């Protein structure tokens, strides 16, 4: 059987996950006290207007009925109406996907560059002071909260040096590279220690592996062994870790989007949770779950490309 046949299986595995997530979000939001309509119409809205709107969104129906119609509508491609935004959820979400995806990918690119730079340096200079320094920075870096990093970056780069904008999401790709640099850097700084530590450890572990010794016995130079053998073998564990990290990131962008005011999904989701915008939360949660699954899938594909042994 083809090693890559898992590509076909993935969508099937997604179904129970999506069902589970929709049930959990539905129940969670039902359990949360508070009335979304009141928040929608604002503090001075009349009771009459509130009742009317509640009925319009079907919020006066029993919970199982609401869920049933929700699933039914989803199957028809209708993800419901946003209470806060007074319109179809799909439209609300569509406007927010790009910033989040851009931010996450950008952050990943930055963190990968940092990761490789640090890990390769440390592994090649193994045991020297620079290696110890990098290791220490990685250990220390894990615990620095990203909101604190974000604040410091804004202070330094936006207010003092005025190199980067404080916030926002520009209209063009190039513009976004500039606008989202600091948020992406914040993400990068958050993730790099974990990845770099892992990659460095793997490099060093792989350098002592039997196959590396065998290569040495054939007189291959260290740099060749590193670049042709050890490097590629070391990518596997880090790629796997990357999958976990991306899943973590997708949720973690919330904080960064908040600090840097990026109109993304994370922001929307938190707002949705706090304002009980049921269908927005549902849809974003499902979308993010799909994102997690896609990232895991990408990891699987990457693993399969990297490692001929993998049967998925």
């Amino acid at each position, binding site marked *: *059987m083809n090693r890559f*046949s898992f590509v*076909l*299986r993935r969508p*099937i*595995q997604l179904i129970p996950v999506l069902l589970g997530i929709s049930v959990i979000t539905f129940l969670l939001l039902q359990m949360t006290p508070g009335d979304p309509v009141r928040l929608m119409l604002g503090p001075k809205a009349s009771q009459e207007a509130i009742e009317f709107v509640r009925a319009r969104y079907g919020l006066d129906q029993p919970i199982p009925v609401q869920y049933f119609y929700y699933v039914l509508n989803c199957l028809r491609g209708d993800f419901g109406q946003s209470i806060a935004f007074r319109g179809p959820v799909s439209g609300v979400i569509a406007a927010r996907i790009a910033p989040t995806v851009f931010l996450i990918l950008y952050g990943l690119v930055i963190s990968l560059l940092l990761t490789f730079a640090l890990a390769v340096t440390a592994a090649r200079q193994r045991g020297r002071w620079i290696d110890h320094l990098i290791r220490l920075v990685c250990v220390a870096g894990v615990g620095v909260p990203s909101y604190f990093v974000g604040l410091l970056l804004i202070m330094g780069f936006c207010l003092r040096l005025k190199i980067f904008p404080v916030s926002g999401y520009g209209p063009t790709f190039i513009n976004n590279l500039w606008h989202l640099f600091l948020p992406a850097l914040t993400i990068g700084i958050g993730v790099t220690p974990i990845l770099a530590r892992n990659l460095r450890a793997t490099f060093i572990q792989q350098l*002592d*592996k*039997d*196959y590396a*010794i*065998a*290569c*040495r*016995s*054939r*007189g*291959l*130079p*260290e740099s*060749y062994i590193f670049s*042709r*053998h050890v490097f*590629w*073998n070391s990518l596997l564990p880090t790629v796997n870790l990357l999958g976990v990290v991306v899943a973590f990131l997708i949720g973690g962008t919330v904080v960064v989007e908040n600090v840097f005011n990026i109109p993304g999904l994370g922001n929307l989701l938190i707002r949705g949770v706090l304002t009980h915008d049921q269908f927005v939360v549902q849809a974003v949660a499902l979308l993010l779950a799909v994102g997690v699954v896609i990232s895991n899938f990408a990891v699987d594909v990457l693993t399969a490309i*990297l*490692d*001929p*042994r993998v049967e998925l």
Partner: protein
Amino acid sequence: MSDLVSVENLTIDFTTNFGDVHALRGVSFSLKAGEVLGIVGESGSGKTVACRAILKLIAGNALVKSGRIMFEGSDVLAMKDAELGRLRGGQAAMIFQNPSTHLDPIMTVGRQVGEAMVVHQGISWRQANARAVGLLEDMHIKDASRRAGAYPHELSGGMRQRVMIAAALACEPKLLIADEPTTALDVTVQAQILDLLRGIRRERKLSVILVSHDLGVIAEMCDRVVVMKDGAVLEIGSVDQILRDPAHEYTKRLIASQPSLMKPTTHACPVATEPHLLVKNLCVNFYPGQSLAAWATRKPPQIVRAVDNVSLALRRGGALGIVGESGSGKSTIARAIAGLVQPQQGEIEVDGQSLDRALRQRRPEQVRKLQMVFQDPFMSLNPAFTVARTLAEPLRQQNICPERDIPERIRELMEKVELPRQLLDRRTTQLSGGQRQRVGIARALALEPEILIADEVTSALDVTIQAQVLGLFARLRRELSLTLILISHDLGVVRYLCEHVAVMQHGKLVEYGDTEDVLDRPQQAYTQELIAAIPKLSRRTSSGIQPGDTPLLAAGSKC
């Protein structure tokens, strides 16, 4: 002939977290051009360190205290990187014990064979690939051009070893260092690889250093042999001289411990009429995980027949050896009888009583009757337990004796397996391999079984330790009148302990009968092949040594 390599008074220490370890203590030996030198010794003897040092392949924490290694007149240990690069691969190359870990798993084998040529000789990858295919053909790999594009995991163990040899020979070195090249292989494959090594040595006029723990391999391959123990050289001499007339006590013991040289212990077995254990038409299938896609396309499930319609019978007090190469299903039979694997078909009867195929359904006394001892001494004991706890647990759980008698019972068990009581408070991780295996036996005996199944119990042990453990088995069997099933890949071990033998291949019983009949007059081609593949040692040893006669074995061979 001048010396190609000479190792002079080499002393190497390893600095570890637990203090310095003396890996080599003043080791000296030399190799003449064209010669095959064997280095034999058990684990920890320093044989691997010694031969790796010749290529300066020593770990970062190794410290050369004294001595030097001369390769064609230049001091290897003083070489700079560039010179080392020329020496390694170009002048001398090395092959290793485990070909599956010593090949890069994510690079095609053709590339791995060819890359040294690209790096050292500056030829193009295309040329290197062509030459690699040629080399692989030289290693008798069929369909070499296709195989060159394969990854290591797509090849069998023997094939991988051929690839590793090809990679080592890529730059036509003068010296080949082979570190346990066949230890991880089945015996028939081992024979093929040894054949290959003999061939290329002859064709390429190679000098060879062959490191092995197996005297048989050394005897078949080498001109001279170095015997090492605890980092020191005990004696050096021609193979004939060492085997016939070993000077050192340890060498004598080493030779005497070879299973093929040990005197069988099976001659005085009691004869019973009714079978104690009866296995009828046993079938064990494995279903490798079926994919959803396969399920969706209604593909029939893949079945691996691990055990295919096997029937066995064993008298009370009898001993049956089950032999076969890896994947033959011999361990699966053992586990199925013990209830650890649930067979799809077949009957297991003990004393005429049928046992349920599922362990959970068997009555406690049925469970007790059948106990197993496992292969890997490092895996068979719970590392979180002390020895005392390991032995107390079955006594307590199966209510073998009242709580207050347990300490006494444990002491008795320790005596039975010849372990000092002081070890009782040790963690199992603090024991040596042999000690662990004895604890494993004691644990099985705690339940007072009638049938003992020993699954490759000695294959992970050094040969002298193996001899001791085998001796212990022989004694226990007799004293406790145990019925024994011994699973092994080593025909010598089976001959030593068992009066019956079953030969298995691909899950099927190939040959079954009295040990002497089967091993001395094999009827089946496979059995003949198996026996022929065993490196022969006996013909080169003198009658001066009486196997089974050394003091160490005395305890184990009372009968």
